[in-house]
């Protein structure tokens, strides 16, 4: 049996990395992810892991070194936040296009300017098109569990893609919570031995990485990359089923909360889902049929499954902790894409909340639910996109 501890999200993720013992980590510090890799570097220093830790001069170099190490044939991990992820931008596409199963906790943080170190999803959403799989975690337990599952998913021979495991900066990364750790031996068994595919270090079979591919084949390579993403959900669910057998903790493509008989739904990711569940309970006590859908896997986005889970609701509010300036919130766009596949077309609104770590408080959830009640009654949406929790 595992053991129950009181740890921060960063500590839990560092523990998961220790238990997985990757071959190579290349990292550069950035708040709030610094503490995660700092803890991991002590494990390296104390001989608790065999990992080769490469201390580089920037996140661009960190991801470059990870790509090199993964192409060489190693199990590779790193971690970052915010500007660090932004600096990795071009390398993120190369990791995915080259099909390298790198795993990276992303401690979600706002992007400059103005400079802000607190949690929102602007960084992760900026990387949504890079070809990485993305998982968002509500709390430290989910971050730990998702990180362990991420290695199995990334390294699955039908996937072989890099995976980002996100948790909210400070709210989860630095808050102490109850977390159930899995035994080292069980994690090791669950993750299994790393199987390299086309390793550069297999000198008997020389090969080249990173060729120039122009109009004759590029389109076909992208078609193939899209296909892999369509296969990923099956693998994600298989891995989740195995994980449940080991721990009893159930994971899906998304989580639903009191949604089965709901008339209205809130779609929200990560830590804000916890607060929302509490407020939903209060409204349920008053007989309001409101439920929640919390996406866990944002890339690939489970359109069909989500359309099915939401098909009976009349009104949906999608809460985005990121904005696409001049566009709709990124989560809203995806949910709207899912709604387009439904016969019943529920009304969908978009609320932008919690940017730069602004607290998401119960009164914001109440405001959203009160509005949903009116929309469900009238079928009319007054404002499609709106900022909530703004000082006025």
């Amino acid at each position, binding site marked *: 049996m595992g053991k129950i501890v009181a740890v921060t999200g960063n500590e839990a993720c560092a523990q998961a990395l220790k238990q997985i013992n990757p071959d190579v980590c290349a990292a550069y510090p950035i708040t709030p992810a610094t503490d995660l890799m700092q803890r991991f570097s002590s494990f390296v220093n104390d001989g608790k892991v065999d990992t080769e830790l490469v201390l580089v001069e920037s996140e661009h170099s960190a991801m470059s070194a990870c790509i090199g190490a993964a192409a060489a044939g190693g199990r590779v991990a790193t971690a970052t936040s915010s500007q660090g992820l932004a600096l990795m931008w071009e390398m993120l596409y190369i990791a995915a*296009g*080259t*099909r*390298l199963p790198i795993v990276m906790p992303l401690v979600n943080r706002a992007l400059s300017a103005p400079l802000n170190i607190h949690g929102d999803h602007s960084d992760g959403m900026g990387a949504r098109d890079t070809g990485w799989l993305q998982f968002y975690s509500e709390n430290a337990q989910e971050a730990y569990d998702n990180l362990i599952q991420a290695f199995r998913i990334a390294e699955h021979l039908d996937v*072989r893609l890099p995976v980002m495991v996100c948790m909210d900066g400070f709210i989860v990364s630095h808050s102490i919570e109850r977390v159930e750790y899995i035994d080292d031996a069980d994690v090791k068994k669950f993750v299994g031995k790393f199987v390299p*595919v*086309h390793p550069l270090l297999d000198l008997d*079979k*020389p*090969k*080249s*990485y*990173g*060729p120039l*591919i122009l109009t004759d*084949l590029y389109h*076909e*390579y992208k*078609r*193939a990359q899209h*296909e892999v993403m369509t296969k990923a959900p099956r693998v994600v669910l298989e891995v989740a089923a195995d994980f449940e057998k080991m721990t009893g903790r159930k994971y899906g493509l998304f989580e639903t909360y009191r949604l089965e008989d709901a008339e209205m739904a809130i779609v929200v990711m990560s830590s804000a889902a916890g607060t929302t569940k509490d407020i939903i309970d209060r409204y349920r006590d008053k007989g309001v049929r409101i439920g929640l859908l919390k996406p866990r896997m944002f890339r690939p986005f489970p359109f069909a499954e989500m359309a099915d889970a939401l098909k009976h609701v009349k009104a949906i509010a999608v809460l985005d902790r990121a904005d696409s300036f001049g566009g709709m919130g990124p989560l809203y766009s995806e949910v709207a894409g899912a709604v387009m596949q439904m016969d019943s077309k529920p009304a969908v609104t978009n609320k932008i909340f919690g940017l730069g770590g602004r607290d998401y408080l119960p009164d914001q959830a109440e405001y959203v639910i009160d509005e949903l009640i009116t929309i469900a009654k009238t079928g009319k949406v007054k404002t499609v996109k709106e900022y909530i929790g703004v000082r006025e």
Partner: protein
Amino acid sequence: MSKKFWETLPQGSVVLEAGSSAKFKTGGWRSMRPRWIEENCIQCMFCWMYCPDMAIKATAEGKRAEFNYDYCKGCGICALECPGKKGNKAIVMEEEGK
């Protein structure tokens, strides 16, 4: 079930065959063509060393041989670096097709 063409591509666009770049004749990109003037050549082998495309052949004895026009892109580096004999270059660049 027969696979679609794009399903047969190697994962991650990795080139699994060693030395396959030899199959890709880059000589067709050339607009300027280097010409070797043997009487001005002092056999310093600078051109052989500087050519980024290994398009200057050498004999088994390590002597300067002809250009390999299958791969020479016509960049002109060899002509620039060539010291020649008494100020007379042993490589000159000429417009292709003239």
